[in-house]
């Protein structure tokens, strides 16, 4: 599953459940079918309009990776 970064942020002040992940990058990705999904980024930081691919699904959370 591939898509384009619609928007992103790096979270520094997390809810209790994600304290161990900080800082993490959150994204909304526009998928190739036009729908949007909120997920996380693995590895290199991304910017708006970057192409990303689904890397893995961790308990229902989609993790995307930058397509180089």
């Amino acid at each position, binding site marked *: 599953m591939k898509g384009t970064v*619609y*928007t*992103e*942020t*790096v*979270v*520094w*002040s*997390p*809810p*209790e*459940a*994600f*304290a161990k*992940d900080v800082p*993490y990058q*959150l994204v*909304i990705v526009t998928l190739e079918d036009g729908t*949007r*999904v*909120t*997920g*996380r980024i693995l590895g290199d930081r991304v910017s*708006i309009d970057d192409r990303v691919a689904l890397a893995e699904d961790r308990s*229902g*959370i*989609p993790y995307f990776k930058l397509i180089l």
Partner: protein
Amino acid sequence: MRPVVVAGAGKTSFGAFAGRDLRSLAVEAATKCLADAQCLPSQVEAFFLGNFAGPSFVGQNHLAPYISGALGITGAPSTRFEAACASSGAAFFQAVQCVGAGIYDAVLVCGVEKMTSQTTARVAEILAGAGDLAGEVKAGATFPALFAMIARRHMHLYGTTREQMAAVAVKNHANGARNPQAHLRKIITMEQALAGKPVSDPLTVYDCSLISDGAASVLVVAAEKAAEFGGIPVRVLGIAQTSDYVALDQKADITSLEAVRSSAQQAYRMARLTAADIEFAEVHDCFTIAEILAMEELGFVEKGGGGPYVFSGETALGGSRPVNTSGGLQSKGHPVGATGVAQICDIVQQIRGDAGDRQVKRNRIGLAQNLGGSGATSVVSILGAM
């Protein structure tokens, strides 16, 4: 709809009050309001409470009669409204609808939130419940993160800058420093605003509103009955509430707060006014970017023009259209369930000429804009001098 007025208003100070419980805050605000309107508890035909998360913050449920009983109001319908940070805006909207429709002559509206007894991380978690728990929140979104993603997109599309966002924080802190009831009475410089601790990029701590305790109350009365009460009445010229998707990723364009635009348009139509007629406003600056978006959706400027507009000084206390003379949510404070009614109290105070050294010169028509979540609820109210 028959004409409706706000016949009384009362607020607690906003702040972190370790020794105060939720009910005592609500009772203080409502008692001040009833005294201002010279209204007896027996004259109140319905009690509408705005509260977002009392059950999560303090554990108490059944909050409306819990508070109205303490005011000596029994035998009347007493109900809590929940619409995230627009909870008391929604309660006020329903009160105006009911009085306007002739169902009641006098409805007491109160908004309250007691937030500071929880840690910041727990507060963030409770507030996140106003987002989509199954999607964005599960992935790690907080409200600062949602508005940070809106800000990033707005910067990308329109060239909005960090300096423009910081200008909102500098202005609202300057106003709040003059407000004796504000939570954080501290002037900040542009340099400080830009160097704040990061919360969720590009937002820093100075882009975010405060975690506060507080309550606010207004008495909504049929204009034809206003003479039976003692306060200086203020007309409700127009009001509307509209809705949108809760999840940010469901929206076609996250830089547009469609509910704010539609509720504003309906309120303008009802008031037979346009954006150009609005002399001053209290808007929902939960984050600096939200005030920039509000300028656009309320029609004060064209889409994308919000950044340059807030940077221009036009919305400062001495500007052509002052915005958030109370200090806004960033400085006055943001006890979320109280915010909508607190904005109405702030507009009433300006129209009555009671705002002291924050008094605006053109004070006959003011607008209040109250937002729930990342835009799924919007209430816009336009008030005017009699």
